[in-house]
């Protein structure tokens, strides 16, 4: 039989696809435009000091957003992270102060037995991971939608934090702990920025180059097809909430260090900023599409916006309105570019 080779879908001549380019780099382009605008109107904006300042301000949101990217890639959501941050931060603080009994001792080093910073970090991460695991199980075993499970988590973890703190903040940690949040490397680069970027790179490698990363995209893109391809969908879904929990714990540790204090009302409202960062970065709430690079850009974009508006003396109320509008515009721009990009 003759071979039937005829291709109605042969690629047409290669031309530069402007919308494809825009679609790919929409958040980055948006960020550059915004930064250029601020640089023109406000000379103080484009100084190294200010830029590092912005990065430092966004580094905790950024850590959480990296974790949230995994969750949203599977078409999930985690509303509990603000509460989990508060709870995990208190755990780190209590460990740093030498345990539960000593947790309300005031001032650095006054506690009888102050534990080192890494044990504090471990405690925060353990709480975060446990919280994530619990929610992951509820989602995959009890089959309750992520929105509902983590809405419950949002309330439950906040309650746990309030109970644990018994009303007051825990503050005054040993210097090494505090350095993790306030220190600078080479007298220039804030430590939280280094932590944020290091973990962002790690997460990027995991998502882009590992088998696990492939599975996250597959489960998010089409869970049924993923299952029929032999993937353990439940395990993958559970794992992204554990990863989110890990980053919530890490973020809580850095936050406590930076403030030299932990309290039960910390992290309130973080979930919305973090979800906004991820979505601005081009990750689809429907799952299967998105990158860590986009999330980092999205996070920085929100930081730049806030910083620039503060420098320009825009009132805090108006800032909120502008940020709300920018979130919608950024995603609209992304959607527009994607709809116009050349197929294939």
């Amino acid at each position, binding site marked *: 039989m003759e071979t039937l080779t005829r291709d109605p879908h042969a690629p047409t001549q290669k031309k530069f696809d402007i919308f494809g380019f825009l679609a790919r780099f929409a958040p980055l382009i948006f960020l550059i435009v915004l930064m250029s605008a601020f640089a023109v109107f406000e000379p103080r904006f484009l100084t190294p000091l200010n830029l590092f300042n912005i990065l430092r301000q966004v580094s905790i949101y950024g850590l959480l957003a990296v974790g949230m990217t995994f969750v949203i890639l599977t078409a999930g959501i985690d509303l509990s992270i603000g509460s989990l941050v508060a709870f995990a931060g208190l755990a780190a603080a209590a460990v740093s102060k030498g345990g539960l009994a000593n947790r309300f001792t005031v001032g650095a080093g006054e506690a009888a037995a102050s534990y080192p910073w890494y044990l504090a970090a471990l405690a925060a991460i353990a709480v975060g991971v446990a919280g994530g695991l619990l929610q992951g199980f509820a989602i995959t075993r009890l089959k309750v939608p992520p929105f509902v499970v983590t809405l419950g988590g949002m309330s439950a973890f906040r309650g746990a934090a309030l109970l644990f703190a018994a009303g007051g903040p825990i503050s005054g940690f040993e210097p090494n702990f505090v350095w993790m949040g306030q220190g600078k490397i080479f007298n220039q680069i804030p430590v939280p920025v280094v932590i944020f970027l290091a973990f962002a790179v790690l997460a990027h490698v995991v998502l882009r180059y590992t*088998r696990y990363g492939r599975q996250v995209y*597959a489960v998010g893109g089409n869970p049924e097809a*993923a299952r029929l391809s032999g993937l353990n969908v439940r395990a993958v879904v559970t794992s992204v909430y554990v990863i989110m929990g890990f980053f919530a714990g890490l973020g809580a540790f850095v936050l406590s260090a930076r403030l030299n204090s932990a309290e039960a009302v910390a992290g309130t409202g973080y979930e919305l900023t973090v979800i906004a960062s991820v979505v601005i970065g081009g990750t689809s709430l429907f799952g299967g599409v998105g990158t860590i690079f986009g999330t980092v850009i999205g996070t920085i974009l929100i930081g730049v916006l806030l910083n620039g508006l503060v420098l320009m003396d825009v009132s805090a109320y108006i800032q909120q309105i502008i940020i709300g509008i920018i979130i919608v515009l950024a995603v609209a721009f992304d959607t527009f570019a994607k709809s116009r990009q050349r197929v294939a």
Partner: protein
Amino acid sequence: MEPLLRMMSIRKRFPGVQALDDAGLEVLPGEIHALLGENGAGKSTLIKILAGAQQPDSGTIEFAGQNVVMLSPHDAQRRGIATIYQEFTLAPNMTIAENVFIGREPGTGFFVDWGKMAAETKAITQRLGLQMQPMAAVRNLSVAEQQMVEIARALSMKSRLIVMDEPTSALSLSEVDKLFRIARELKAQGLSIIFVTHRLEEVMEICDRYTVLRDGRLMGSGSISEITIDGIIRLMVGRQVKALFAHRDREIAGDVVLKVEGLNRRGNTQDQNATVLADVGFEVRAGEILGVAGLVGAGRTEMARALFGADAFDSGRIIIDGQEVHIRSPKDAIGHGIGLVPEDRKQQALFLALAVRVNLSMASHKRILRWGVFIDETAERTMVEEYRKKLNIRMASQDQLIANLSGGNQQKVTLARWLALRPKVLIVDEPTRGIDIVAKVEVHNLLFEMAQSGIAVVAISSELPEVLAISDRIITMREGRVTGQIKREDATEEILMSMMTLSVKPT
């Protein structure tokens, strides 16, 4: 006779692709018109333009003697053109009546007149010769019944032209008959119908005239009575496809690879006590293609899914290479060398937002791992290239999104996903559904080649010519039971049909 619809010199360009280039379509009043062409020929784009869902770059549309511009789907509906897409647009949690009158509920002011809505729905369904409860929820209807609701909706809008995109692809034979009866009835009432389809036998049976598109161009149009299937295929592919559905006789001497005994499953989503699978048993040899024929709902897909671990079953033994195996998940099945190409490509096989390369390698990551964790992209690209060549997959690059491939090439990628796993048993469920005729022949050849290489192939198909063409041996199923077994050379469509429809004799 003046045509009801005349579309002329329609052009439509999408970024990177000239979807329509001087396409045309003329439909007479009171006829059933077949719109034909391979996937990618421009049929979908043409009907979307007709439905107002897309705007042409140039060209004219005349409807009922007037020059019209279809601004939106609503506009097209208002003029009397209703389109029933492959994916229905019904709201599953609402009633039949609500769906029929959605957006046009009868009533006064703010309030819906439920009685009137139900009565009118009843009247319309009776006009179609159907017994339907207007207040029943659409969710509980079969695919065929949902299609009838779509048709009822078209009638309630006083449509003069109904466009149906692949209306028979998900229907059983008796449901197809029913649909055809209704189509003839509507025709007798003076409506025109456009059928977009791949099934040429059906075209010959039901349609009055045809229009063939190829690469966005009008290739030919005329009366069905003056053309043969071969003639239509020539117009569609631009050459004569020889040996379509031709069988190759082979000697099967391999060992039994897969043996199934007493597979039982009770209960589905609607009925806990329904018999889904009853005492299903068969065996397949290495190098053999076992065809599985049966009407829709006969339990073929359920049998495949049970074997593959996609659905649980109550009892039964699965024996591979003489060893009984326990399969509780697709992962287990894959571990035992079983692959499944599912019936619904888009819902169950493809990751539309991911690249061809990623789709192809999804089940065989183990082959391309480095340090147990990382995907070795170089090895992956080599592997994908190997299967691209072997299966003649047409794509711009490995990084192209699979969503942008034609149905036939998507199906080849799905097949390649399992070949890459080097399975012992490959189950294919409706391997050529919704793909064009050229790709269909290629898929058939691929199934032969897989069998030649020693894979035991189980091929489920609703198209009897296909079953007869590709199988070495055929089993038939009905109501969850295996009703018969026959060698390919002894089988004809008539024999198979009687085996599929006769009730089982107790043994």
